[in-house]
């Protein structure tokens, strides 16, 4: 059975996993804060649509079909 990553770190060397964690945490927190701020100021997070709307003629409208629009 192989040894754990921590166990493989030579004595006296910094723990790479711990260092990555310490570096990533502030970046993740900053990213979350920025996303929250963007949402607060109305920046939409959805990706832009990957399609163009289909342009149909009026004859293709389903005038009597069921729909759930109010009003």
């Amino acid at each position, binding site marked *: 059975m192989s040894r754990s990553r921590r166990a493989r770190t030579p004595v006296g060397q910094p723990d790479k996993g711990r260092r990555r964690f310490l570096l990533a945490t502030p970046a993740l927190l900053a990213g979350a804060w920025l996303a929250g701020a963007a949402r607060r100021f109305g920046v939409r997070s959805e990706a832009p649509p990957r399609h163009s709307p289909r*342009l*149909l*003629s*009026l004859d293709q409208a389903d*005038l009597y079909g069921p729909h759930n*629009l109010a*009003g």
Partner: protein
Amino acid sequence: MGEVVCELCPKACRIPEGGSGDCRVRVNLDGRLRATTYGRPSAIHIDPMEKKPLFHFHPGTPVFSIATAGCNLHCKNCQNWQLSQRGGEEMEVLFRAYPQEVVDRAREEGCTSVAYTYSDPIIFSEYVYDTAELAHAQGLSNVFITAGYINRDPLRKLCRVLDAFNTDLKAFDDGFYRDVCSAKLKPVLDGLVTCREEGAWLEVTNLVIPTLNDDMAMIRRMSKWIRDELGAGTPLHFSRFQPMYRMRNLPPTPAESLTKAWQEARDVGLEYVYIGNLYDRKAGSTYCPKDGTLLIERMGFRVIANNLVNGACPTCGQTIPGVWT
């Protein structure tokens, strides 16, 4: 080329070159304000007039209903958010339907009215105006289903070609308008008074949302305002809330709340008060305010019986306000 200011609604968006207003569909292209959804509706259906709801305007008739994407309000409870909270380019489907095509198709289908509805037609008002003008010329009526967040001058212009309004009065509280709808109360009240002054037929809808606007003291104040400013004969519809969009944390409105609101409005002196989005045969029908005769019996959106005689009660002859023929 600089920014343009949209003067259509009280938001008065300052739109930079290439940008859009808060409604997403009115844009600044080359320094000119353009309505991108002109002639490009995304919803077209034929509905009964009662669905709008308009209960005192050509009852039981089919109405050719159109809407484009976009809205100048962003209500957290919007039932039509997939249409209203998107720009035209985000829709799956756009129909090519210029005003004359809309009017021709409405007539072919036997509709007597065109409704501008579903999203808020304020944001496509140029398209509404041109279509409504043609519709009038060919004998069709025009109805406008709106939250009423519009400036006075464009509203007055629209009133020239519109015959009936159903305006949402979402609450009688400015805080509600700010927190839930991103709007203000006063322009809506001003718009209702303008509609009345301009002589278009007017009905009012209030969606009752548990804990947010179901305070009976507020409903009483709202009903008094309607009585005093718009008249006791103005129909008021209390509508049931269903959890939607960004307001799924609240339950549907209990039937008792709607019944209490209905009673409050009647106690204040409003003569035509209705309950919608909930089956209630009594509160969905029209009665003579003088002698209680059943005038129009409805089941949901269907008119079961219309007993009016020339727009009046068949028993006592009381004239019932509305547009009946």
